[in-house]
């Protein structure tokens, strides 16, 4: 929001340099977005000569002395040596005059755009000479501003006091700062100055003896939407242009002057922060059809319309608040007025409205209509209900004063729902000091708060504080401490570390587990990907991953169809990321992602930390958020062997992770999975539970992700394998006696599974078997079709003695027999 320094100075001295003013704002919590130093780059020039422009009755050339040599950028426009030639349409300049010259690239304060080089009648003219209105220093638009003193080349800001405009970002809790008096109050307090507030009552000489109640009546039908609705009536108004000072004030904050009545409502909005609306009372009576202005405030009936001030026909909904003339909606409350009751040049009597509106209702209407006005922006924030009469008096006085009218006696209003007072608040110096971490005495606190408009009573170290009506954001001692903190400055607060009262953490947290998994993946050569957790509805049908059969969660307001449901598996987006890398030319890309999927209807019980009163039970349960490790490996060579290696690598990562976290390997069970190569896919089980899957993408799926070559993928449910609390570990003494390592070679039918054989070995083995590894598998040769050979490397060891060869052989014979029994194995000698 824009603030004019010159306007702010109506209420406080503020003669500090602009930089000091900016610092005072920033230090007390008002963000300064931009500072427009008025007229930067504009200089004083002396006209050395004027000459008529051939073929024009009013244009003339002016040669300018800019003090010193002509700058290179303007050299092309020099006709008489040492001067720059510009064109002007103003009749009032002559040789010898001192004038403001705005070169190309500068922007006169009251103009919207930077100047360039104009071509008029075939002549190029750089920048322009400025009038008072263009500089924002006066109302005279007819002629160039002739300066009384100054030297050629001098910055105009030195020769002339130009306005400075601040663009401020006001935090949402401070609607009282969305106006010049509010910011002036902040600055006065920060800089230790007094504040001159504008008069809040109507002077006697502008008042009429007639009561306004003879001309208007107010009825509120929806007190929740409109807790207060107040009006004043001004008679004998002559609508016309506003005086110069008012027009200038409005221009300085980017508003266009219209007429004195409308301009005053806009002025008071920017002065006091209360939006006002001016109706033409006679037109209002005409629309309402009653003898006097019959103001009714209510919600709109669907199908009702208002033609607004911009001439747009607005259809209303039952959520919108309207101000009606009798039964007819006359304006959209808090957002925009209607054209049928608007002030015109013929208006003689003004019905001036100032009301309190329910912020959320105004915001909803403004959003639905796609219409944000200064009024709606303010009302959304929730304004004090004590403000309307103050603003009404100020505006009514100004209208009467500037338009020759008089203000009828009294307010016509209803105030069914006064807001409760937010005070008094008890505050001690001790509490203030303890919360800030400093020592501060009560007198300093009292002084600080009083500067901001708080009424403070001090009794020793205890203060009783009454917030001013415009500070609806302050209701707690903590709120007052914030006021004190920001005004005295946080640089006064030392930096300390909290006392060590909290025991060192004992509860397990997820993060170390995640760190361990990431370390395994990175060590195995995988790069980390982070993909968006929302996916397209169709993604799961291409590659369901672990989300097979799960119900996804749909977003009610997604950004796009591509991101419309929460993922039930990370694999589709991970494969897409893999494909993107391949298409960027990276080879053999290996990606992993560790993140959550979302399964509706899977969570058992409440989420941790749910409120103890059980109120969450009434809400639909939150979805389960399983933690998934998903990996995808690209095989640039595209060979079956390369792809097999890649699947094995995925398997190796999962087995490592599983052993590290759960102390147990995952078991692969061959399974045909949608999207995966039927002969090269398996689900993974841990303690009987399905915890993962892995395999190679089938050709259709790889093609769907537009990836050349082959791709191995896998997905593992970390939350299902990682015990909580994490598994304890311990270290053991290395074996003290030697092992006997023997090979056992067998042949089996080609469709036998290694996993079954290893299970059989472990089941048959006695405690002497330390390890059984299938280290070779071969086909062909003398085996013939339908058979394959396996060589197991068996490690036998006894913990308490050196094993004899006979013992190891006996154990191996038992194993061989079990293999023959369970797998139809023939022993090869």
């Amino acid at each position, binding site marked *: 929001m824009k603030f004019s320094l010159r306007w702010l100075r109506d209420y406080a001295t503020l003669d500090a340099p602009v930089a000091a003013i900016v610092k005072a704002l920033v230090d007390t919590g008002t963000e300064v977005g931009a500072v427009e130093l008025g007229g930067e780059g504009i200089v004083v020039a002396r006209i050395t000569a004027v000459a008529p422009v051939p073929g024009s009755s009013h244009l003339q050339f002016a040669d300018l002395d800019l003090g010193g040599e002509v700058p290179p950028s303007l050299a092309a426009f020099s006709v008489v040596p040492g001067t720059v030639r510009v064109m002007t349409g103003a009749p009032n300049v002559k040789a010898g005059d001192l004038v403001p010259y705005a070169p190309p690239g500068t922007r006169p304060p009251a103009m919207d755009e930077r100047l360039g080089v104009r071509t008029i009648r075939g002549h190029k003219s750089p920048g322009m000479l400025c009038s008072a209105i263009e500089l924002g220093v006066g109302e005279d638009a007819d002629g160039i501003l002739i300066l009384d003193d100054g030297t050629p080349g001098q910055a105009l800001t030195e020769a002339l006091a130009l306005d400075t405009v601040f663009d401020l970002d006001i935090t949402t809790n401070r609607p009282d700062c969305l106006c010049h008096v509010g910011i002036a109050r902040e600055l006065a307090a920060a800089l230790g100055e007094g504040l001159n507030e504008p008069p809040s009552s109507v002077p006697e000489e502008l008042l009429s003896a007639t009561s306004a109640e003879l001309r208007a009546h107010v009825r509120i039908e929806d007190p929740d939407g409109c807790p207060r609705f107040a009006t004043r009536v001004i008679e004998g108004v002559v609508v016309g242009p506003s005086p110069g000072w008012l027009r200038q004030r409005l221009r300085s904050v980017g508003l266009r002057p219209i007429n004195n009545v409308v301009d005053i409502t806009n002025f008071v909005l920017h002065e006091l922060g209360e939006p006002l609306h001016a109706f033409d009372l006679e037109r209002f009576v005409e629309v309402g059809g009653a003898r006097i202005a019959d103001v009714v405030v209510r919600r709109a009936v669907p199908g009702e319309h208002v033609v607004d001030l911009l001439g747009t026909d607005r259809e209303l909904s039952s959520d919108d608040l309207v101000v009606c003339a009798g039964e007819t909606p006359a304006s959209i409350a808090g957002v925009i007025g209607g054209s049928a009751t608007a002030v015109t040049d013929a208006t003689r009597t003004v019905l001036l409205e100032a009301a309190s509106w329910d912020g959320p209702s105004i915001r909803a209407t403004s959003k639905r209509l796609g219409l944000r006005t200064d009024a709606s922006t303010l009302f959304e924030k929730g304004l004090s209900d004590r403000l309307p009469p103050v603003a009404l008096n100020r505006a009514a006085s100004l209208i009467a004063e500037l338009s020759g009218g008089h203000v009828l006696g009294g307010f016509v209003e209803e105030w069914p729902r006064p807001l409760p007072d937010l005070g008094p608040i008890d505050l001690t110096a001790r509490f203030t000091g303890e919360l800030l971490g400093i020592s501060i005495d009560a007198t300093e606190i009292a002084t600080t708060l009083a500067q901001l408009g708080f009424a403070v009573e001090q009794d020793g170290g205890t203060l009783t504080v009454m917030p001013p009506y415009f500070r609806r954001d302050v209701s707690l001692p903590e709120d007052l401490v914030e006021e004190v903190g920001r005004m005295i400055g946080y640089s006064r607060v030392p930096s300390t570390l909290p006392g060590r009262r909290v025991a060192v953490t004992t509860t397990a947290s*997820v993060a170390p587990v995640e760190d361990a998994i990431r370390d395994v993946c990175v060590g195995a050569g995988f790069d*980390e990907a982070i993909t968006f957790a929302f996916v397209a509805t169709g993604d799961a049908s291409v590659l369901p991953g672990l989300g097979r059969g799960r119900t996804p969660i749909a*977003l009610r307001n997604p950004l796009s169809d591509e991101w419309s449901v929460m993922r039930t598996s990370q694999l589709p987006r991970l494969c897409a990321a893999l494909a*993107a890398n391949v298409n960027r030319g990276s080879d053999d890309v290996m990606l992993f992602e560790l993140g959550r999927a979302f399964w509706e209807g899977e969570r058992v019980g409440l989420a941790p*930390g749910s409120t103890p009163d059980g109120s969450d039970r009434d809400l639909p349960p939150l979805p389960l*958020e399983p933690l998934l490790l998903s990996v995808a490996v690209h095989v640039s060579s595209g060979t079956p062997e390369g792809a097999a290696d890649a699947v094995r690598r995925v398997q190796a990562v999962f087995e490592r992770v599983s052993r590290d976290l759960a102390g147990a390997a995952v078991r692969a069970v061959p399974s045909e999975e949608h999207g995966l190569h039927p002969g090269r896919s398996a689900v993974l089980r841990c303690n009987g539970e399905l915890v993962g899957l892995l395999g190679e993408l089938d050709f259709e799926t790889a093609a769907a992700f537009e990836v050349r070559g082959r791709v191995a993928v896998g997905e593992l449910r970390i939350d299902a394998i990682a015990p909580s609390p994490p598994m304890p570990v311990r270290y053991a003494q290395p074996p003290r006696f030697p092992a006997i390592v023997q090979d056992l070679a067998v042949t089996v039918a080609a469709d036998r599974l290694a996993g079954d054989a290893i299970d059989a070995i472990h089941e048959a083995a006695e405690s002497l078997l330390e390890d059984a590894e299938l280290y070779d598998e071969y086909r062909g040769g003398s085996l013939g079709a339908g058979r394959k050979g396996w060589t197991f490397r068996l490690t036998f060891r006894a913990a308490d003695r050196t094993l004899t060869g006979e013992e190891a052989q006996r154990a191996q014979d038992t194993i061989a027999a079990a293999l023959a029994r369970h797998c139809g194995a023939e022993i090869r000698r």
Partner: protein
Amino acid sequence: MTADVHRVAAEALEAITAAQDPAALDAVRTRYLGRGDGELTGYRRGLGKITDPDARRQMGQMVNELVERVTDALDERQRTIERAARARSIEAETLDLTRPAPPLRRGRLSPVTLAAREIRRIFGQLGFETVEGPEVEYDRYNFTLVNQPPGHPARDSQDTFYIDDSRLLRTHTSPVQIRSMLIRGAPQRVIVPGKTYRRDHDATHMPMFHQVEALCIDEGIAVSDLKGTLEFFARSFFGANSALQWRPHHFPFTEPSLELELACVVCRGSGCSVCKYSGWLELLGSGMVHPQVLRNGGVDPDRYSGFAFGMGIERAAMLAWGIPDMRLLYDNDVRFLVPEAASEGPAERPAP
């Protein structure tokens, strides 16, 4: 016989000289010195047939001497051959170490992960425990219980992904404050990293991003503790000489509220387009936990006070490592993940 012995020994010495490789030398050794039946050692068997003890002793001595000579010659020849073989293999096995080593394949973590780890580590030093919360959250926890009741501007559905009337994707990690208070009570110190979601997508906003939140509750916690803790964090993360400044601000869930700013990492405070010519960059929002928020978490605000802060992890990573565009963090381009050593970095933080 003496002459024969000498002849055989001379032959052996000749054969030794002629042998060019270990196999040939082995053959010579076997032929002349083989146990029992070697051509030279065989003479030892014949010694028994010499009846004269003196002659037998002389002969024995001579044979032994010759065997010793031949053995020495063999050993010497073997060393020579081995030396030659080693010399040949050294020549053949030359390794050109000027050729760069094959790349050691190691994966790379996302800068988001690296930053989150570092943040957790720093707060861990101060006794903050890492906790997490659900990403699909109740409206009540995300908004109402952290002082953003229905109708509050921050709840605008423009900015929030809703699932239904009561559930949404959390817009910040703050609801975990409530959950952590309900679980742990007071006192506590927790650090909460996690994914957050807002309905916003442009060059500087991602609809999914990461935040980190900290909560410290105890008796007597003051703004000074907030300042000290977060300055310790900022200087640990961005470098010991980082210039910092505090500014009052407003957040619904803290009172008082403060924002921490870091001197612009690009211009070092002199003003540039990155910091919009202010010289400072917003780093994090913080404040003393609002008494109503404490109450909502079941903590008695008359006994305990606390501070909290929240920060975008992407922003911290971008500032620390000079990442020019937030979108790079979500492109998943493996080439981006490999950091370069910067001769002069924007911040003092070493590369991950």
